[in-house]
């Protein structure tokens, strides 16, 4: 279990390289490592852009299956309409709107918990192919 803080842009790189090396340690192949690292990059960047700061928890899962779970938590503005935010191409900042839907496709599961004004928690997971 590894906890990392996001406070500045450089932390995005730190978080995703840590996730990549943990994924490698768990046994994920190069393609999955790259997928995980890219998804982490998107979600960490969202924290940096929308909430300024937050925390990332990386866990190795072994029961019932081997895999990785990464939890992103921030106390930022929260997401008003989660369904909309998950849509391809929707962005509140004039960006590409690829982060959330992209991360969802790159991982095996993604769960968003958010309350406007209170913050956002996003949990993603990927299982090791059997």
């Amino acid at each position, binding site marked *: 279990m590894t906890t990392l803080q996001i406070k500045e842009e450089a932390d*995005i790189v730190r978080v995703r390289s840590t996730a990549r090396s943990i994924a490698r340690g768990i046994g994920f192949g190069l*393609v999955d490592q*790259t997928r995980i*690292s*890219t998804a982490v990059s998107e979600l960490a*960047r969202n924290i940096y852009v929308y909430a300024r700061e937050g925390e990332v928890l990386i866990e190795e899962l072994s029961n019932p299956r081997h895999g990785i779970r990464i939890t992103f938590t921030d106390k930022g503005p929260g997401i008003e309409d989660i369904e909309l935010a998950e849509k391809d191409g929707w962005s509140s900042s004039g960006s590409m709107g*690829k982060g959330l839907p*992209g991360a969802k*496709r*790159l991982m095996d599961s993604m769960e968003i918990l958010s309350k406007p004004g209170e913050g956002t928690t996003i949990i993603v997971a990927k299982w090791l192919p059997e």
Partner: protein
Amino acid sequence: MAESKKSQNKDINNLDKRIEAIEEILAAAAGGDFSAEIPIVMEEADVLTSVETGINILISDLGDEVVQSNKRADQLQEKLDLIKKQRQAIEELSTPIIKMWDKVLVLPLIGTLDTRRSQKLTESLLTEIALTQSKVTILDITGVPTVDSAVANHLLKTVASVKLLGAECVVTGIRPEVAQTIVHLGVDLTGVETLSNLSEGLKWAFNRLNMRIVEEE
């Protein structure tokens, strides 16, 4: 012995004045001045003298400690400045723009591209294109391990700016795992010319310039 101490306890010389001196010294120390000392007359030592001596030692040690700590803070700042300078140097070193051929530039991207670095890169690239009158630019991303939407967006913007200068751009070196990831991410790079590697890129560049590489018989 006990009796003589007891008698000393009774009469402390100049008590008011000495308390005042202690207060002054403590106030000075609180204000950052550790140079003053409580005057001590050893011949007339009484029970307060040991307290005064103790305070003097404490303040003098504190002064030394503050000097040391300031020195350490300065050294730390120096190191931080050095790291910053080195970081800048590394950034510059890691983003060389190579004039590969007349009118052909190659920009091998290595490592991570944060917002600051990508902006700087695009700027220097555009300047260099104008300066060298280059017509073809090859952006090689073999050395970029993670292409997230921010990096992809940066590539799209750079390609668009290069086009505005009347030059062409090709992206080479997208690794297979990165290619798969970009597709999953849903970023559309169809407007961007891409080729597997740098040498393909060079061939493409020569082709655009109506040049050919011929093998000598």
